[in-house]
């Protein structure tokens, strides 16, 4: 694996950082100016669930270069970054589009030709790596990865339990420069609430140096305090808040809207036919052609968004 900051450097940074209780609302454009070329970006959600798409589209629009993207399971957004030179390194346990779409051809092209690096860990290993970072320790012990070639390729080390003498996998802390997370609600200070499953968002955010939360709704602090048990991240772990209704589209946001599978279908068909050019065309058409994400959503049309919302409603009715 490639070395980033050590856990002590990460801790030292946080110790020195301000924890202002101030209005952190920004435009996506403003928030993404916190990202620098070459940064390691942890992308919240997983596969096509609660991906911070409004933030990622803005990163693409601003053409950040040579980013490392880490994610539990990576979807087509990753191909858009590879195809436009936005990312040259992926740290994940799985990169594809989704079961029914087979392999991800753009991802394959970049990794098979060596143009991009794919550092593969197991799913739990990704989780424990973020968790070690979030816990402020340099590693956590685990019992998977052992004996596999992913252990060999990543340079996984082992640790011996000082009490029982067992040898365990030592998962090294993963400490992103920036974590991008999409939430259901957040207040202006950054207190963020999520409904349903949390994926690895909590740990990746607490492991990161800088955290940007996009939210379906920016709510009053009182609304947050009305159900404090639903708060996933406290304000002092969040640097910027971006209001982004349908901010995960075309991916899902639990309880609010299902993924727009037709949207990736079209993407996959086009890249199967035209390869990397089609991925670049997707970015031109759906990102560059729009001033912001809401303009992209307008081009998608209210009908599509309503259909995704209706699908979610059907699944929430028990």
């Amino acid at each position, binding site marked *: 694996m490639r070395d980033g900051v050590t856990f002590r450097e990460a801790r030292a940074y946080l110790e020195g950082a301000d924890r202002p209780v101030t209005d952190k609302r920004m435009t996506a454009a403003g928030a993404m100016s916190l990202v620098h070329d070459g940064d390691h970006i942890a992308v919240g959600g997983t596969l096509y669930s609660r991906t911070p798409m409004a933030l990622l589209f803005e990163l693409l629009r601003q053409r950040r270069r040579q980013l490392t993207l880490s994610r539990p399971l990576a979807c087509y957004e990753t191909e858009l970054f590879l195809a436009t030179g936005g990312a040259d390194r992926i740290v994940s*346990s*799985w990169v594809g589009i989704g079961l029914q779409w087979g*392999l991800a051809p753009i991802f394959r092209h970049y*990794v*098979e030709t060596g143009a991009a690096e794919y550092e593969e860990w197991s799913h*739990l290993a990704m989780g424990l790596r973020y968790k070690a970072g979030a816990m402020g320790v340099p590693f956590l012990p685990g019992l998977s990865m*052992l*004996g596999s070639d992913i252990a060999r390729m990543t340079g996984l080390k082992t640790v011996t339990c000082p009490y029982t003498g067992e040898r365990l996998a030592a998962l090294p802390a993963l400490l992103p420069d920036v974590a991008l997370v999409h939430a259901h609600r957040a207040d202006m200070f950054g207190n963020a609430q999520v409904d*349903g499953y949390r994926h690895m968002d909590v740990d990746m955010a607490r492991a990161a140096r800088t955290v940007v939360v996009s939210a379906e709704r920016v709510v009053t602090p009182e609304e947050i305090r009305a159900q404090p048990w639903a708060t996933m991240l406290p304000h002092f772990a969040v640097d910027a808040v971006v209001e982004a209704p349908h901010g995960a589209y075309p991916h899902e946001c639990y309880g609010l809207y299902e993924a727009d599978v037709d949207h990736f279908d079209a993407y996959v068909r086009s890249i199967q036919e035209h390869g990397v050019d089609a991925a670049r065309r997707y970015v031109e058409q759906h990102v560059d052609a729009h001033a912001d994400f809401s303009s992209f959503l307008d081009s998608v049309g209210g009908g599509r968004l309503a259909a995704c919302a209706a699908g979610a409603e059907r699944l929430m009715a028990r």
Partner: protein
Amino acid sequence: MSGATAEEVMAVTASRLLADHKVVFAGVGMPLLASALASRRQAPNLTIVLEGGIIGTRLLPGHLPISTNEMRAAYGAQMLTDITDIFLFAQRGYFDYGFLGAAQVDQYGNINTSVIGTVEHPRVRLPGSGGANDIISLCNEIFIVTQHEPRRFVPRVDFITSPGYLSGGDSRERAGLLFGRIGAVITDLALMDFEPGTRRMRLRGLQPGVTVAQVQDQTGFELVVADEVDELAPPSAAELSIYRTLRDGPPAVPPAAVVPA
């Protein structure tokens, strides 16, 4: 055989391995479908767990998830937590079964979902482990379901993404994998387990009408053949009808009609 496709034969055979009152950690696709079928047949109290932090999912027939991390996978769940937490349940020992597919499997049950060729010069870069490495390392008993083709059943996988019995014998334990055993490999042709001691893949059962020679012919390594090789029962009309309803939604015609008399 009762108009069943290879996929349906596999799913039905696999589903029969799941006992009632157990917990199965199922991968998306065939493993999830087979688990859902079992829960509607012999295992009504089977708890299905999915890596997306989902415990006790029901499924809406005809609206099956494409991923284990989406709303359709969470339909009717008893508990929603996070991804890491689900794997920690597995590591603790709560999950009786781990249920996986495989792009490439070898005679020791090692699975490759990472790369065809070498990592340095990949011919095909596959998506990667996802949860498979963890499921096979941490669940109590592992079932692997895949189509029976020589290109999938290789002597040695190009890359061990998910460790089976590694190089056989006690090499799995020696690698520090303290838990889990590979219980069975289920295909459209046969049911296999692993020979005690050598841990080599062993033929235990044949799908209806399939011969030992046919299975060996479709396997890229020499299979151990058990002293007793049973013929597996064909999918019943009821099994097929439930399976197809799960996959496609309620049939327009009465279920019985989809199976030839």
